């Protein structure tokens, strides 16, 4: 599903150049649930941004579902993001003046789906994350865990090939974190490919594979025994 070869990325700040990714080689098969771990500054977020086409690598190859992702202009990047990827952010990034249902329907709007069908689909995903009753609530009327679940529903609404989650539990307490992870595991069980960036060991161990990043290179890539989130709650 995801194929990365010799990926390099540096940031330039004035005269200083910061080499963040120093040759990453990395493959993800369909249906995998992968945790990308590493201390801050290890380049894990940069890697996720490149995977999410929010940022571009300096060199190296990136294939998403066998499609080469390179030389993207804004237009194509936007279309690919909409079609292939679903994002889950640490700070949820819901649109504050839209209710839960409209937030979930947003990616569908950009797919050019009509309003009625959009609402039905969005409702379906909201119910899937257990928030059907909260459809008309604004984000600030929801708890952190609920917000993240709305965000997950939104990420899934466009039926992407891959879900990318950047510290999805970073802003949540342990109990809510586990609830969110349970949801993510459930989605993965249905066959969706999911990548999670995290620095929490327990969260990482709820995935099926842990990739460790340090100073821009992968130092460790192991399959792990998945801990079901329900067991911890």
């Amino acid at each position, binding site marked *: 599903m995801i194929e990365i070869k010799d990926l390099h990325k540096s940031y330039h700040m004035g005269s200083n150049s910061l080499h963040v990714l120093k040759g990453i080689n990395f493959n993800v098969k369909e249906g995998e649930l992968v945790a990308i771990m590493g201390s801050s500054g290890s380049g894990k977020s940069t890697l996720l941004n490149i995977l999410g086409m929010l940022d571009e690598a300096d060199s190296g190859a990136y294939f998403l579902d066998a499609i080469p992702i390179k030389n993207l202009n*804004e237009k194509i990047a936007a*279309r690919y993001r909409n079609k292939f990827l679903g994002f889950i952010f640490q700070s949820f990034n819901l649109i504050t003046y839209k209710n839960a249902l409209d937030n979930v329907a947003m990616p569908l709007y*950009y797919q050019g789906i009509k309003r009625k069908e959009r609402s039905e689909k969005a409702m379906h995903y909201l119910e899937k994350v257990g928030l059907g009753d909260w459809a008309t609530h604004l984000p600030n009327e929801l708890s952190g865990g609920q917000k993240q679940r709305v965000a997950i529903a939104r990420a899934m609404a466009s039926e992407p090939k891959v879900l990318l989650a950047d510290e999805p539990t970073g802003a949540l307490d342990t109990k809510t974190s586990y609830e969110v992870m349970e949801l993510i595991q459930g989605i993965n069980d249905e066959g969706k490919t999911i990548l999670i960036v995290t620095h929490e060991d327990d969260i990482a161990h709820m995935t099926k594979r842990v990739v460790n990043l340090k100073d821009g290179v992968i130092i460790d890539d192991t399959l792990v025994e998945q801990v079901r989130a329900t067991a911890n709650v």
Partner: protein
Amino acid sequence: MFDIERWQEIFDTIRKNKLRTFLTGLSVASGIFILVILLGVGQGMQNGISQEFEDDASNSIWVWTRPTSVEYKGLNPGRFFNMTNEDYGFIYKKNEEFIEYQSSRVRIWNAIASFEKESGNYRIEGVFPDFQFIENETMVAGRFINQQDVIEKGKIAIIGNKIKNDLFKKDIDPIGKYIRLNDITFKVVGVYSDKGGEREEERIFVPSTAAQQVFNRGQNINNLSYTLKPEKDFQTAVAKSEEFVASMTSYLKTKHIIAPSDERAIGVNNSLEQAKRFYDLMFMIKAFFWWVGVCTIIAGVVGVSNIMLIIVKERTKEIGIRKALGALPVSIIGMILHEAIFVTAIAGCTGLIFGLLLLEMLGPMIETDFISNPSVNFNVALTTVFILIFAGAVAGFFPAWRAARIKPIVALRDE
């Protein structure tokens, strides 16, 4: 433009951001409102001043005599002199090319006019047929003096509406009746009305030749009046009229032995020159109003631009989210501009309507000589609305464009 989904999206945004929308709208609406009021008052002043000139043909020239004021060729100052039929004929011959209508005038002040038992004190003026057009008299009944009357020295009279009401009973048609003017019988052949009001209608017109003969004026005339042929523009008309006045006064001064430096002896009222002064003043006033109006619009545009900048800044994160969810840059720009144009259009029209309503309501209540019927050319007002909308769109475009180009990660980082 007619993408229903886009409209729904925009109405959503507007509904959820009422204050922001209201403030944007307010600055636009007030700008247009003020402009409409200013232009309306400007137009009102123009109307008022134009009306002041309406009762006489606005390119008329009047000439009369006064005692001389400068000693010349052994003649003392303070000498009276009279213009004559000869002067009238000669001026016409010399300036035929300029003249549209002409008439000399013989005036008999305080003549007593009577019909049966009624009588009154009026002014008799001996004039030529053209005088009707110089004074803009409207015939209510009958006819004005014609060339035949002048040649035959016919004892006929054209009376003002007021005189008709004074002398004749309501049910009597004055046409064909004989009235006595200073005990000489004249036949009434016409009744006129004058926009100048009753004062202007207290005159009785008789043929110039008849007046001179009947009232013992010989060849003398009291004054001359002319209107000049229309010119293609105002400046030429003013220049021509000045040329005509100069030629005429220099002739009269030579003929009647008056010092060239004597400014008093010959009185000239060139209404065109007066009009020019008023028109210049009016132009200045209008220009000033326009200037203030344009400044108001500029202030409005700056206001709209400011608000657009703030809106875009405020929505940076939202834009980042939308882009991460697959929004095209074009759709981001479109969304912001669409909203801006929609809001300015509605607000602009609201301001326009309020301004026009106020003018409509207050306009008729303002009654001074210098402001009348203040109104605005609807097209001008509408054009300004469009300019404002366009300016708002341009002002909104650059921030929107920049926002659409921000990388989503940068926008999302923005807390």
